[in-house]
């Protein structure tokens, strides 16, 4: 029934190979390259849609497809296999759907770039890796995708190879991700070994893990340590405290990359991973609590940094970190469905926001270039009043802004509210997680509207020479904006909670994946709160109120009294500087981790490698040289000496033989 499942990830791989091998020398034409890349992802999308609807009408919800055996050693049996269930079906739709829109957008955005073919080749490779990640039927195939997306992230952050800052950001992202990957692998080994040696279940297959995971025992040490290791992996990939610092720097890459990799798909891999291993996580309340608290702290911490950033992409980057924090809150309190739901809506509105910012930067860049100015095209202080110049970009940006702020009726309202309700009412939740989440929601509304006002409203602050050259972007860029804006508007309607009279389709759709663990380990809304609709309405009202408060403050500060932010900065200079410099986290990491590691590395190089290792090797060679310099004097080249030595030797041998 799902015979061609393997085609979904292979399509982008084919696109990647064609463009990567032939793009530079043979195809050359930008249009053809763009169409091949976009088409490859779009075909995957069509196939995903077909299978998605097939799954909707299918009574069996979990389908495995093994393509071939990969590793077969003793007890270890690993296949190249795909898993198609509601969770991966949804992820496939998001990845291929948003992916094809962003590819389409890139055709216009990357126009004229000398690395055009390289860009699309990397993008396709990324989609391939991401699809392997979400469809793999065992943890090792997932790990291939996990590493693959990390590699593509590295390649695309460092896409502008002539910029040193881009290269540095790419390296930072890669190294920080490695730390997380290390945790992921350790967790994998621990689960595999414990399940195998103690319970005789040697498996990395997700279906079998879900089936036999309970053998590890509820709250057991092994499962707690393993899931904490997995979570370390998730913090690396999904930019949570303490490993979030790479994501804001990753904005050095082209904007479509930020939209696809660093907002919509790759950074949600950690959330997906926890969802995929929900049985293991559900068994460790300690880990779940850690996940929820780290998520909450990240949500509020990143939001606070977003207050003072002037680079439009950095604001969005911190917003992404903060929203990912929400998803981890959801995962931590057992609201797996809500987490995946927010992942999906976030993919829509954040991709839209990033693409809008890309559209603005594109326009700004061209205008500034035209006027021969080298002002920063990403600095919001150079923008302002763009809503008349770029109406489509403005409208879609505004819709997404309203959506992320949690205004009722738009997508993020439903997902965010579901998360907050669970944070408060779940058996694994607590009021302080809810409180932090609600405050962060208000902060989100504030900085997003600050961003909106600074970019699109008020006086136009662009240099007068460049002002009139700002135009709306071409159609290939605005169509994805409109589609994503529309999805940001209505995407939430698949998950209207029951209390608002909705059917919560997504909840029922994902039930087969999460329901089992939730039931087995008593994760759900507390019994006492089950019927208190008043409380649910109340909490909803609070979060709506906080959101509107954030919007009002932003309106007051940036629309009505544009001088106010400046005065505020002057009144609290130290505070502002700390926020502006991201709470000096990078500096602290540099001092605590990076520099000691660097000096240790220098020591290993100059102290250990050069002196000890090379010393031993060169010393041995020198010793042999000295010995042979002495010994070679015996090689006189005189026949008589050799003959004498031979006779002498014979005499000695005979003497030994005779006298023995």
């Amino acid at each position, binding site marked *: 029934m799902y015979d061609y499942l393997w085609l979904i990830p292979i399509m982008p791989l084919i696109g990647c190979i064609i463009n990567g091998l032939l793009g530079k020398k043979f195809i050359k034409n930008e249009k053809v390259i763009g169409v091949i890349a976009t088409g490859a992802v779009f075909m995957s999308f069509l196939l995903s849609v077909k299978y998605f609807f097939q799954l909707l009408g299918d009574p069996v919800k979990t389908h495995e497809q093994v393509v071939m055996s990969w590793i077969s050693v003793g007890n270890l049996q690993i296949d190249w296999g795909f898993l198609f269930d509601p969770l991966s079906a949804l992820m496939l739709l998001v990845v291929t759907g948003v992916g094809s829109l962003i590819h389409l957008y890139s055709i216009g955005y990357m126009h004229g770039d000398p690395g055009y073919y390289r860009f699309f080749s990397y993008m396709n490779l990324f989609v391939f890796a991401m699809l392997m990640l979400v469809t793999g039927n065992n943890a090792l195939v997932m790990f291939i995708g996990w590493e693959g997306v990390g590699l593509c992230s590295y390649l695309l952050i460092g896409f502008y190879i002539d910029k040193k800052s881009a290269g540095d950001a790419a390296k930072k992202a890669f190294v920080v991700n490695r730390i997380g990957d290390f945790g992921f692998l350790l967790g994998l080994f621990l689960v595999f070994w414990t399940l195998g040696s103690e319970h005789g279940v040697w498996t990395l297959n997700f279906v079998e893990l879900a089936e036999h995971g309970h053998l590890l025992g509820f709250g057991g040490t092994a499962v707690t340590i393993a899931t904490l290791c997995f979570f370390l992996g998730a913090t690396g990939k999904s930019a949570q405290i303490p490993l979030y610092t790479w994501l804001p720097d990753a904005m050095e890459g082209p904007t479509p990359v930020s939209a696809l990799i660093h907002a919509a798909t790759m950074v949600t891999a950690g959330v997906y991973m926890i969802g995929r291993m929900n049985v293991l996580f559900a068994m460790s309340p300690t880990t779940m609590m850690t996940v929820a608290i780290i998520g909450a702290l990240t949500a509020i911490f990143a939001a606070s940094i977003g207050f003072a950033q002037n680079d439009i992409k950095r604001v969005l980057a911190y917003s992404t970190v903060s929203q990912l924090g929400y998803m981890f809150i959801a995962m931590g309190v057992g609201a797996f469905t809500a987490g995946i739901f927010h992942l999906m809506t976030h993919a829509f509105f954040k991709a839209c926001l990033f693409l809008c910012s890309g559209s603005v930067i594109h326009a700004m860049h061209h205008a500034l270039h035209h006027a021969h100015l080298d002002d920063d095209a990403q600095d919001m202080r150079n923008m302002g009043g763009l809503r008349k110049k770029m109406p489509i970009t403005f409208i879609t940006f505004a819709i997404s802004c309203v959506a992320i702020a949690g205004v009722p009726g738009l997508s993020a309202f439903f997902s965010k509210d579901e998360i907050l309700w669970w944070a408060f009412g779940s058996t694994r939740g607590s009021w302080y997680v809810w409180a932090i989440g609600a405050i962060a929601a208000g902060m989100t509304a504030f900085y997003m509207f600050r961003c909106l006002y600074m970019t699109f409203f008020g006086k136009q602050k662009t240099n007068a020479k460049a002002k009139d050259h700002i135009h709306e972007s071409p159609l290939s860029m605005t169509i994805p904006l409109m589609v994503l804006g529309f999805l940001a508007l209505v995407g939430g309607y698949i998950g209207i909670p029951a209390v608002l009279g909705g059917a919560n389709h997504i909840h029922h759709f994902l039930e087969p994946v999460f329901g089992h663990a939730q039931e087995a380990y008593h994760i759900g809304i507390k019994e006492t709160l089950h019927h208190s609709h008043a409380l649910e309405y109340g909490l909803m009202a609070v979060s709506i109120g906080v959101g509107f408060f954030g919007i009002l403050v932003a309106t007051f500060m940036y629309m009505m009294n544009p001088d106010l932010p400046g005065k505020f900065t002057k009144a609290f200079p130290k505070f502002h500087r700390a926020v502006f410099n991201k709470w000096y986290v990078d500096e602290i990491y540099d001092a605590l981790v990076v520099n000691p590691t660097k000096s240790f590395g220098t020591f290993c190089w100059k102290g250990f490698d050069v002196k000890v290792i090379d010393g031993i090797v060169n010393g041995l060679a020198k010793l042999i040289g000295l010995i042979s310099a002495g010994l070679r004097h015996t090689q006189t080249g005189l026949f*008589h000496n050799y003959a004498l030595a031979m006779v002498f030797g014979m005499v000695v041998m005979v003497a030994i033989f005779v006298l023995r």
Partner: protein
Amino acid sequence: MISVYHYMTVAAILFTIGTYGVLTRRNAIVIFMSIELMLNSVNLTFIAMSRHLNNMDGQIFVFFVMTVAAAEAAVGLGLMIAFYRNRESIDVEDINLLKW
């Protein structure tokens, strides 16, 4: 009566003379001749012992030694001629290209 000891003594004297020649002479041909002398002293020992022990093995060995000596002499003389063509000499002191 000439006993096997006399043969042994003659062979030992011949062998020592041969060894002395190999060690002291510089002319390659003479060294060759000295080596032949050593081989023949050994042959003499073989024959004498063969007779003394009533065992024919020693005599068979002598045939082999003679054959090998003839072959070796042919190869050795060939080498000498080749060397002479290059260095206009057959003095072993001049064969020293491989020294350090």
